[in-house]
């Protein structure tokens, strides 16, 4: 499996996202320009210029026409995927950390950090059919109990009835989108022990996977928030992904970026680790990055995946045929 190295970012990668058809790959990095790539050969199609800060997250609509990005310049922006034009800017009082389109793409959930007395929050915005009609008002604002902790990710639950959030306070919460009430939160005993860094949901919104600095990733039922599986690794987990095709999960991470320069490159464990979803056993790893892995995404066809690292590279891997026959 020879990866395609995509060098388009000057700063560490933060997020990767395929569109539904699996032909486009969007990447976000701490430089200010989200980039669009062809998913099969890594050709750069274009960039989305306009942000004035690190871009931490993005999402693309089901029909691949709209892109939403969240950035540390205290805005979230809507883009036209094809032309690269800015359609609308949502302004916040602090960094936008995560964005996610709802089923039907009429709503978006955006999380913002705490900043200068503003506590971290989850905002729900209505996305208008016609960009002309777009307004910046929030339909709903949810406050996390601990406003001093970042909410690293919030996504829509089944049928847009719930929002699932996770962040630095280690707790996973499920919110009711109608009333804004907190419905469930993860059990302290079985939950993560350190900051939740990433959250990835299954295509059918039935379950989701969380990665945490406590060196574990956990698989949860999205409706009942029951812990189903737990995967333990040796380094903090920054990114997680689930194969849509096989029962595999991928964890990416590595030692803290600040310690990288002082230790042997092998100490870092900058590998994307594959685990069997059901048996919780490690299958293998994909090496290559020379910094921690910050982002992982599976192509919706399950035949390729890409990883983005602190080193500024996106590595696009097409699986060899023997990957599909792994038996453990």
């Amino acid at each position, binding site marked *: 499996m020879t990866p395609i190295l995509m060098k388009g970012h000057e700063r560490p990668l933060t997020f990767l996202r395929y569109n539904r058809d699996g032909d486009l790959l969007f990447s976000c990095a701490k430089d200010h320009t989200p980039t669009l790539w062809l998913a099969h050969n890594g050709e750069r199609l274009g960039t989305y210029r306009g942000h004035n800060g690190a871009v931490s997250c993005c999402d693309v609509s089901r029909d691949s026409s709209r892109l939403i990005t969240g950035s540390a310049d205290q805005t979230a922006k809507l883009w036209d995927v094809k032309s690269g034009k800015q359609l609308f800017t949502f302004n916040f009082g602090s960094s936008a950390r995560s964005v996610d389109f*709802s*089923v*039907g793409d009429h709503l978006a959930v955006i999380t913002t950090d705490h900043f200068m007395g503003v506590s971290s929050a989850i905002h729900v915005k209505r996305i208008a059919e016609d960009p002309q009609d777009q307004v910046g008002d929030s339909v709903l604002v949810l406050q996390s109990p601990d406003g001093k902790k970042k909410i690293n990710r919030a996504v829509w639950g089944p*049928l847009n009835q719930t929002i699932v959030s996770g962040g630095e306070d280690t707790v996973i919460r499920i919110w009711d989108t109608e009333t804004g009430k907190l419905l469930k939160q993860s059990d302290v005993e079985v939950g993560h022990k350190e900051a939740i860094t990433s959250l990835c949901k*299954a295509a059918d*919104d039935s379950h989701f996977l969380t990665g945490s600095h406590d060196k574990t990733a956990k698989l949860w*039922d999205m409706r009942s928030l029951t812990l189903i599986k737990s995967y333990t690794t040796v380094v903090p987990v920054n990114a997680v992904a689930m194969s849509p095709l096989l029962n595999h999960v991928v964890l990416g991470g590595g030692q803290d970026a600040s310690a990288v320069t002082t230790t042997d490159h092998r*100490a870092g464990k900058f590998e994307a680790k594959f685990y069997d*979803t*059901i048996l919780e056993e490690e299958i293998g790893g994909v090496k290559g990055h020379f910094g921690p892995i910050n982002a992982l995404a599976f192509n919706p066809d399950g035949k390729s995946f890409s990883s983005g690292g602190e080193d500024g590279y996106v590595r696009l891997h097409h699986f060899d045929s023997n990957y599909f026959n792994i038996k453990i």
Partner: protein
Amino acid sequence: MAAVVDIDALSAQLGVNWSEVNLDSIQLPPGNNFGIESDDEAVYHDDQSEFDTGFGNIIVVDHLPVVPKEKFEKLEGVLKKIYNQLGVIKENGLWMPVDPDTKMTLGYCFIEFNTPQEAQNAKEKSHGYKLDKTHIFAVNMFDDFDRLMNVREEWEPPQARPYVPGENLQKWLTDEKARDQLVIRSGPDTEVYWNDARQKKPEPVHKRPYWTESYVQWSPLGTYLVTLHKQGAAVWGGADTFTRLMRYQHSMVKLVDFSPGERYLVTYHSQEPSNPRDASKVEIKVFDVRTGRMMRDFKGSADEFSIGGPGGVAGASWPVFRWAGGKDDKYFAKLSKNTISVYETETFSLIDKKSMKVDNVVDICWSPTDSILSLFVPEQGGGNQPAKVALVQIPSKVELRQKNLFSVSDCKMYWQSSGEYLAVKVDRYTKTKKSTYSGFELFRIKERDIPIEVLELDNKNDKIIAFAWEPKGHRFAVIHGDQPRPDVSFYSMKTAQNTGRVSKLATLKAKQANALFWSPTGKYIILAGLKGFNGQLEFFNVDELETMATAEHFMATDIEWDPTGRYVATAVTSVHEMENGFTIWSFNGNLVYRILKDHFFQLAWRPRPPSFLTAEKEEEIAKNLKKYSKKYEAEDQDVSLLLSEQDREKRRALKEEWEKWVMQWKSLHEEEKLERQDLRDGEVSDVEEDEYEAKEVEFEDLIDVTEEIVQESM
């Protein structure tokens, strides 16, 4: 938060103002703990009472002049002057009682110091102080009065305690699967495990958080595990779980050491001096392990316990007392400036009541099996007097053999484990005196007149990085040359034709190694590249002179063979932040299992006592190994079958459970189909499409697989 609010509400209800309550002032009725167990069950009650009186820092000075009121202040002033030199007297800490009738002093006073140490010191220094001819101070600790007053007039024979049958302390040796135990410390926990290589995992035996306050150590024969605490040391052992067998009171104990036959335990404590110019104070106690009785204690400044070598070693080098080899624990020796003190354990006094005077001796080393002491004296008088290595028989103190060595910079002595050979690594100056080169002097102890042979490496200028004897064998390994790729050579003390000559067996060129670890049974050795070499391991068979396996335990810091030489543990301890934990390998370098533990401090195999089998019997077993091993191989197979069966069962259960979830998710997804369609403005829902896609993928995949297999089989 919530709990605090509750308490506040409750106290408001009851009208209690918490700020006015002093929790310490609440006295519980004695003997009633209200069901609240004290945390410090392990607190040493007897010692505790000693400290609890709180009078440990008071001394009583007797034989003072009896003075009238007018002279009271003058006397007080004199006393203060004397005792302020010896320690800090507490404010109002000097109290001289006065006879209420005559207003005369009573001839004694009490002085309270800041610390018990100061009081002890003041007592020792001022006892017998002559104030004038008629007044010679008699100083006592206040606590001693109490203790001595309570001594009965008549001697009562101590009551014989009823005999309580002890546990079988060696039960672990009777393990049916003949497994070995190991102890690890990680985070606050200390855990003992069976090394169950068949099951490819450790099996827990005993786990205890905060078992020790610094480290743990096995006794040399594996009977006891010693833990260190503020109050002293304790040993643990027993048949099934680890119970405390004995405690040894020695406050702030820092280091412990067992005699080789594990009859005695030596504990060490040193205290930093309050005045930095003074040497630190050292206290060493020797206990009988089984009775817990202190046999002897040694006190003094660190100078007396350190080697007065040219390096001027700071502090004492541990172990201060070196025990003579063999299982009788008969002698132990201490090295200090120009003297070697050899004690015998029958009376715990010096042999012949005096130490051996050896000018400038810097190192001593016991034979591991006999009471022979080897010692090294460096060059003196600018080379006029040669350096010498000598062998001394104890207790006769007869010099068995001696060798003078010229232009020596340093010497290191290595005994072979059965005491047959002694290798002395000698670093000599070159003619210019600018650099040194190394060679070996090899002593054959068991032969007549103890012949000495000189061995020099092929390349004389090679630096020697490591040296190790084969346990119980006649071979040794040397790492020599320059980093980062030194050579490793193997030598034998026997040659095919001539048993009395050393010969080289092989040299392995350019190895990434800086440490040698022989298997305890010999024959196999691990050439390890620790630290700078990131944990390179080479498993080498010295009989065949071939590498069995090479492996890497990244960043490994420690390597330890199990006592039987079947398995070896490599560990990354918390000197590194990452990948703390240990790995168990088979003797030939197969990875058995790996355990990760954060904050991993220590790993130690439980030693085994030596085998009772005679050498002939062992040889016979080695010859007919096939016959003996059959039984164990069958067992191995049974276990591995069972394991794979269990594994299959577990996997099946997991798969079933997962299928249940998937079914549930599928049906829910189906139920919500219409609603989802609604949310997507009536766009035909993804369900059919998704299913179609999924099917397509599966289909394609399946064909791929089956076709290939069919082709292959045809």
